């Protein structure tokens, strides 16, 4: 909040704390937002509301989808046929025009996802991607040496299992449906969801019993 200072008297100003001054890019973001609001092209409420939308999207949503697919075979079929429609069945709305293809890991195929050109990611159902997903080492190497990349995450895929890398370039987004761990027959759907991590839905690690959230 701006306020007027009288400068015809002597008093020391409090030192400007460098950490409180917004950086150059934050100033730019603020200025652009305010200009667009002044011109009535957007409203402050548009931004505030979209922040709430973004905050509401976390890997817990994807975990719910995975757990439902594990316990309900008919849902799993619908999920594999049209990922977005099946998520919407569970109340997970998509706030953009993207489609979702769910990639099922099986005994013979292990899927992982990447966006080599930018950072496409299934945000409506997983939230925002981690930095490593958006940086060069993962993006450059996931398509050319996926098994070595997986090994860096501690994941070793046997040679008789196909590794399948999906590179997003257009309107389709991907979610990996990881394999259900052994010895979970008596788990409730909620307990199953608690096992499923974001990185398992990217496909870089499996779901294991040691990974309760």
């Amino acid at each position: 909040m701006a306020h007027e200072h009288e400068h015809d008297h002597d008093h020391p100003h409090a030192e400007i704390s460098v950490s409180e001054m917004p950086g150059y890019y934050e100033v730019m973001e603020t200025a652009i937002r305010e200009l667009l609001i002044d011109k009535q092209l957007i409203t402050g409420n548009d931004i505030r509301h979209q922040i709430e939308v973004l905050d509401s999207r976390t890997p817990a949503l994807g975990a719910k989808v995975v757990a439902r697919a594990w316990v309900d075979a008919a849902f799993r079929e619908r999920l594999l046929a049209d990922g977005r429609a099946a998520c919407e069945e569970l109340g997970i709305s998509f706030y953009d025009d993207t489609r979702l293809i769910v990639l099922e890991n099986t005994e013979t195929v292990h899927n992982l996802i990447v966006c080599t050109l930018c950072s496409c990611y299934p945000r409506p159902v997983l939230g925002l991607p981690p930095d490593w997903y958006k940086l060069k080492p993962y993006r450059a190497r996931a398509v050319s040496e996926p098994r070595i990349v997986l090994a860096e995450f501690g994941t070793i895929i046997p040679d008789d299992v196909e590794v399948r890398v999906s590179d997003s370039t257009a309107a389709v987004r991907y979610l990996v449906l990881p394999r259900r761990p052994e010895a979970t027959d008596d788990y409730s759907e909620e307990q199953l969801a608690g096992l499923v991590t974001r990185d398992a839905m990217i496909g870089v690690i499996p779901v294991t019993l040691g990974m309760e959230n």
Partner: protein
Amino acid sequence: MPNHLPSQSRIPGIVPALNEWPSFSPGDRVRVASRSPIGHYRVPVYLRGMTGTVVSIIEPVMVDNETEGYGQNAGSRRHYYRVSFRLRTIWAAYSGAPADELRIEIFETWLERI
């Protein structure tokens, strides 16, 4: 819901809109064009000239994202295809398993029938 009709159920005399029906079908062998556009493109350099197999047709027809990047949202709707490529055919020194694959969405204007 697909907005194309399989050819055996097409009614004679019905003329589709330009590019309304997909040019390629699942199972088709296709080659990615070798052209090198400057400016905005969405087919990575690593795929240019590569041969793959159509896995599925993405529905519905959508705008060409390469022109959409310049603010042109109309007049360019065609199909995207999910296409698979064996990694050992893309990378000369690929060290993984022979069956390992890449799958990627490609706009119809980038694909040639083999």
